């Protein structure tokens, strides 16, 4: 049983309150969407869950183990994997080597050849097995995104956080990513997906968390959240959040990562 407990997380940067008493739980293989306007604290929250930054207050427990005090590599080993907003493939390593890094990091005594078959299966699943021996830098942007998803499968965490998995990808690739999320979710992994692509996130997720100015203003099923007055107000009073967001995000895919 997967259990993630985020209790009263707050984070200050200088005088800026980036997160204020954020609390939520994940039980079992849920598929959770995390949305909110730019600067709402989504990336900060991800970085706290991942261990990259420490919260000013509050605790995070994963499977009853406290993880907010751990460095990122230990959080990863405890079963929390993530992608980054900007694709971060290891550019001068081959695709296979990219996949071997998390596999070996998780298994201190294993060797590369033990994971070759698993890696090839993962690549086939992501339809990039023909690139196995190519360098990361020779892949297209979308292929690099798939590679990152593949690395997460090798890490084999309980909870996967995806930061903007659909941003700027080809429709055909989007299908593959969509299928990846649903298939892996069905295999028993929980997902937290940050996305500005409202249509996709509302249909994909079973539950939505909405952040605004560092506060968790809504937590519930997509249909309930869609009509929550606080959420509508957060999105500039627009009746339908999806369209309103589409525009703000197009020009601002990179800016968010700065608030970490």
């Amino acid at each position: 049983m997967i259990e993630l407990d985020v209790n009263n997380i707050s984070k200050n940067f200088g005088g800026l309150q980036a997160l204020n008493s954020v609390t939520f739980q994940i039980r079992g293989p849920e598929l959770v969407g995390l949305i909110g306007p730019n600067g709402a604290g989504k990336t900060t929250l991800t970085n706290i869950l991942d261990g990259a930054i420490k919260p000013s207050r509050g605790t995070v427990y994963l499977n009853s183990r406290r993880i907010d005090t751990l460095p990122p590599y230990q959080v990863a080993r405890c079963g929390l994997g993530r992608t980054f907003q900007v694709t971060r493939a290891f550019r001068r390593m081959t695709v296979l080597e990219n996949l071997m890094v998390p596999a070996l990091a998780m298994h201190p005594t294993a060797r590369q050849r033990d994971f070759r078959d698993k890696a090839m299966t993962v690549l086939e699943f992501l339809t990039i097995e023909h690139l196995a021996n190519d360098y990361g830098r020779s892949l297209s942007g979308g292929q690099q995104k798939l590679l990152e998803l593949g690395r997460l499968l090798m890490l084999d965490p309980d909870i996967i956080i995806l930061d903007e998995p659909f941003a700027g990808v080809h429709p055909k690739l989007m299908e593959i990513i969509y299928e990846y999320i649903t298939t892996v979710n069905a295999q028993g992994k929980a997902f937290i997906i940050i996305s500005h692509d409202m249509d996709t996130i509302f249909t994909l997720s079973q539950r939505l968390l909405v952040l605004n100015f560092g506060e968790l203003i809504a937590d519930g099923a997509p249909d309930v959240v869609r009509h929550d007055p606080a959420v509508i107000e957060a999105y500039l009073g627009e009746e339908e959040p999806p369209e309103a967001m589409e525009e703000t995000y197009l020009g601002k895919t990179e800016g968010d990562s700065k608030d970490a």
Partner: protein
Amino acid sequence: MEHAYYFWWALLWIIGWGAVGGIVTPRIYSKKDLDVSQAALAGTAIGAAGGPFALAPLWYLTPRLNWKWVVVPGVVILAIFAASFAAADPNNLCVTNGPFVATQVTNGLIVGIIYGLMALGLTLIFSIVGIVSFAHGEFYMIGGMAVYYFTVVWFPGMSPFWGILLAAALTFALGAAFELLFLRVMNTGKVERPDEYAILVTFGLSFFLQYFTLALVGANPKKVQRFLDFPAFGLPSANHPTVLKVTSSTVNLFNTISISSPRLTAALMSLVLLGLLLWFLQKTWLGKALRAVSQDRAAAVTGINPDTMNTLAFGIGTMLAGLAGAALVQVFSWVPWVGTLASARGFVIIVLGGMGSLPGAFIGGLIVGVVEALGAGCVPDPQRAAAYIPAYGMVILTLVLLLKPTGLFGREL
């Protein structure tokens, strides 16, 4: 040193408690959920200054920390340092002879101005091109060599003014050409790791320029006559020069502080150049464009081509190094490897002042000048003192990188 152990124990005390303060303070502040941005630095300073007597109340009361919590302990540390030094070596010139100390400090400040000029070039390059040039000292060396060859070898009797101007033109052209040939490619995205490429390629340039010059001019030290013979006079009167006494080779203040005139000429020249540089950066269109690019690479939209600005900035940066060399060639004898130490000193200064900060480079230059002068004058055993000159700056460098990598005036990393 008669009682050397006073000094070493004091140093051990400072380092030990500084380390304790630096490591423990941030943890206590973060546990109490307070702002930790200054905790490591202030903790180190307070620990080093007061040991457990200062750290205990700090940890108990955890006041809000600002720059004063670093500066005040800093002064105390310097006082402990000086007092323990005086106690350890009571007969040292630096302890017994006030005028000697004053002379050392003044000379340090004067050389520091020139160091500042050179470091200004380095920091200008960093703030606009975004790289640390490891070949900066070589341009300094070439500036001096050019003055020597123009005014002494090729056109004997040429006024130093024209020699300096030609040296500036030469170093500007070399720097700009290098930028065009080797650094511009970084902006095209074809270089996989631009930071490391820049480090290695400028390092290669330094190696190449140094040995190329050596191959051309040989290893014999070059000497240039002082540029300016000061007219002899005194204040209040020529017979009783109690305030100021000027001869052709030295300037003497209050009968205590003596400065050699070539150094003073070089420092004055540097100040004029600094003024010109400031005027250029603040008042001219080109200068404003340069500053705009250093703020934001995307300034291209306003009609400024960042590539051209890079070339210009690199050229101006190397020219400043060349000018510093041209100013100092009359002070020191000149060999092809003078640039190595100058480079190292430049790094110390820009790291101390904060990478990319112009005032930081100037003040860093002054600090390094004074520290080197005091180190050379005060460390007992003159031979050792002289041998350690390059190390004083490096100790500053390592301390700054460990304690406050942004330096005095640096932008956040």
